[in-house]
């Protein structure tokens, strides 16, 4: 039996407390009214600091294009960079009579963004930690559905991590309810004033309306939590079963297959609802898969990290380095799968250059350039180079190091999915972001390790248990 050590308990509680204080500070520091934003902007200008606005950086690039590379303008060149009108809205070059109006508009825009910021930070961290147990549950279900022989020794670790599924889901649901009560403006399609002037969103209201949205969210979270509940319950019942009584094993096999079907439909819709609808004009047909790849690789990484942690504390003696090797292979493979989807989504939209699609990537590249390309380095280059060698996959500290890079990279991935639509160009990773991450990390650690204390860390009566214990590569 695993017991939650006091040290870990204290650590997770400290994380939660520090995180909670930080989140509160983030909400207090967010400007309460437009005057505060005006003061802020005035202060910044007085100090002579250039608040890096995309308009300014763009001019430099234009110059580079003109004299650096000998570009002969193509006749068919399409402008995807921001035009002057938009730049004025963003407040870069303010001159002429309309300056006043534009200035006010800009300040109001900035005000909304800064008000959204702590909410968006909370939402990103909540979603990031929610998707980890979901990815683990999928991995767990695949082990049952595929009747995998190598993994039963890791089942209790996976079951423990999925313990966060319900608490995390409830937190997400509460955040969505708060959004629909107009406490924040994360989802602009929830605002009737916006919809009134927007024919594109009007066409989507039969799907994107608050009651249906919340019903769907309840179905996703409730469905996943139910499947998780019964899968884990059957797994516990299997422990008490008579030798060679495979009733619960067969039941779980069917349940796992059913879950995977339910999951792939609901996950796809969840990604449209919770993330893609933040940019209600934009759409991508492989977005569900893209989010899935992110959650899957994060989940597998978390299994590897928790397993290595428990091993280092003297538990899980039956897990050998071949199991770690297999997990690392999955981390490596799914990281490449994620990159494949990331690139497939990017290249088709970049290539066809259709205005309503390409704006999504224009904002991400111009305002979030470092994060957008940085996460590809973290999520692709690091795992590929660090885990390419077969021997490195069984060196624990290598797996841990790569795992931390992967998890950080996928946090940035979710950040870049959510932030451009909610806080736009006024992003930075500050107190609200870091403390939200700390809070959910603390809660996650506390919940998953507590749920592991309830049952022995090794399953019993699983027909593949012996094969798994003797598994060697």
């Amino acid at each position, binding site marked *: 039996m695993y017991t939650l050590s006091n040290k870990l308990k204290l650590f997770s509680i400290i994380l939660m407390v520090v995180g909670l204080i930080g989140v509160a500070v983030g909400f207090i520091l967010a400007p309460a009214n437009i005057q505060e934003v005006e003061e802020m902007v005035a202060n910044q200008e007085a100090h002579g600091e250039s608040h890096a606005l995309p308009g300014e950086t763009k001019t430099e690039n234009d110059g580079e294009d003109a004299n650096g590379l000998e570009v002969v303008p193509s006749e068919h060149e399409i402008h995807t960079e921001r035009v002057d009108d938009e730049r004025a809205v963003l407040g870069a070059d303010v001159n002429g009579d309309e300056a006043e109006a534009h200035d006010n508009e800009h300040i109001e825009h900035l005000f909304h963004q800064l008000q959204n910021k702590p909410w968006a930070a909370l939402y990103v961290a909540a979603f990031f930690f929610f998707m980890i147990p979901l990815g683990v549950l999928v991995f767990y279900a695949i082990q049952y559905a595929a009747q995998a022989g190598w993994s039963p020794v890791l089942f209790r670790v996976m079951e423990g991590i999925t313990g966060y599924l319900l608490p995390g889901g409830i937190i997400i649901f509460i955040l969505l309810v708060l959004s629909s009560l107009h406490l924040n403006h994360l989802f602009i399609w929830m605002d009737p004033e916006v919809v009134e002037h927007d024919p594109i969103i009007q066409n989507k209201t039969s799907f994107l309306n608050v009651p249906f949205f919340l019903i769907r969210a309840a179905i996703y979270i409730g469905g996943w939590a139910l499947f998780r509940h019964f899968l884990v319950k059957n797994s516990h019942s299997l422990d008490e079963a008579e030798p060679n009584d495979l009733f619960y094993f067969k039941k779980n096999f069917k349940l796992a297959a059913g879950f995977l079907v339910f999951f792939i439909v609901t996950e796809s819709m969840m990604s449209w609802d919770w993330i893609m609808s933040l940019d209600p004009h934009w759409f991508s047909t492989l977005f569900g898969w893209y989010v899935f790849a992110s959650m899957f690789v994060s989940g597998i990484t978390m299994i590897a990290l928790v397993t290595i942690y428990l091993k280092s504390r003297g538990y899980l003696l039956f897990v050998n380095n071949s199991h770690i090797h297999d997990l690392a292979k999955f981390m490596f493979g799914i990281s490449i799968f994620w990159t494949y989807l990331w690139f497939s989504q990017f290249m088709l939209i*970049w290539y066809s250059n259709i205005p309503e699609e390409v704006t999504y990537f224009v904002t991400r590249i111009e305002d979030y350039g470092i994060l957008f390309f940085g996460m590809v380095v973290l999520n692709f280059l690091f795992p590929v180079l660090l885990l390419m060698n077969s021997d490195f996959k069984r060196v624990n500290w290598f797996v841990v190091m790569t795992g931390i890079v992967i998890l950080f990279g996928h946090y940035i991935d979710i950040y870049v999915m959510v932030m451009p639509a909610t806080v736009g160009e006024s992003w930075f990773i500050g107190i609200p972001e870091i403390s939200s991450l700390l809070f959910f990390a603390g809660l996650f650690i506390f919940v998953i390790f507590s749920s592991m204390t309830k049952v022995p860390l090794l399953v019993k009566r699983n027909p593949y248990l012996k094969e798994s214990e003797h598994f060697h590569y």
Partner: protein
Amino acid sequence: MASKVIHALYTDDDLLLQAVRQVKEARYHIGEIYTPFPVHGLDKAMGLEPTRLAITSFIYGVIGFCVAVVMMNYMMIEDWPMDIGGKPSFSFIQNMPSFVPIMFELTVFFAAHLMVITFYLRSKLWPFKLAENPDIRTTDDHFLMEVEVANHNTDDLTKFLYDTGASEIKLIDNK
């Protein structure tokens, strides 16, 4: 030069693996093993060096990647600049995303094909080469271990091999 070898036949891969370990322990020298399918862990049990094929494969992949870059740069940028979806011509980097699939494919193509060819060269295989296996049954369901007699007593060795579970033993005298 006369060299004597013993051919011991086994009917099961687990049995073979166990026999290999025992033979190694008794310090007899295994010349070669013929199996109908790859036996997992046999290379480790025999004490063979790990393969360096993966390293060559990586190098071939890098070469394939470079070939793709040079090729696309020459074809689409220098020799006959193409208008790719209205992107600025005459610039490799600004058109690079559309070349990524080609880079990927050529990396895989080079790595895979050249690795197979390297494997053939290294194992001295070529088309129409005649099979070298000493017993036709090793292509079906038997496993053959070739043990060098050298200066050991043939009878002792034979008895030892029977004890390891060999189903059949033949003494081959290459005069």
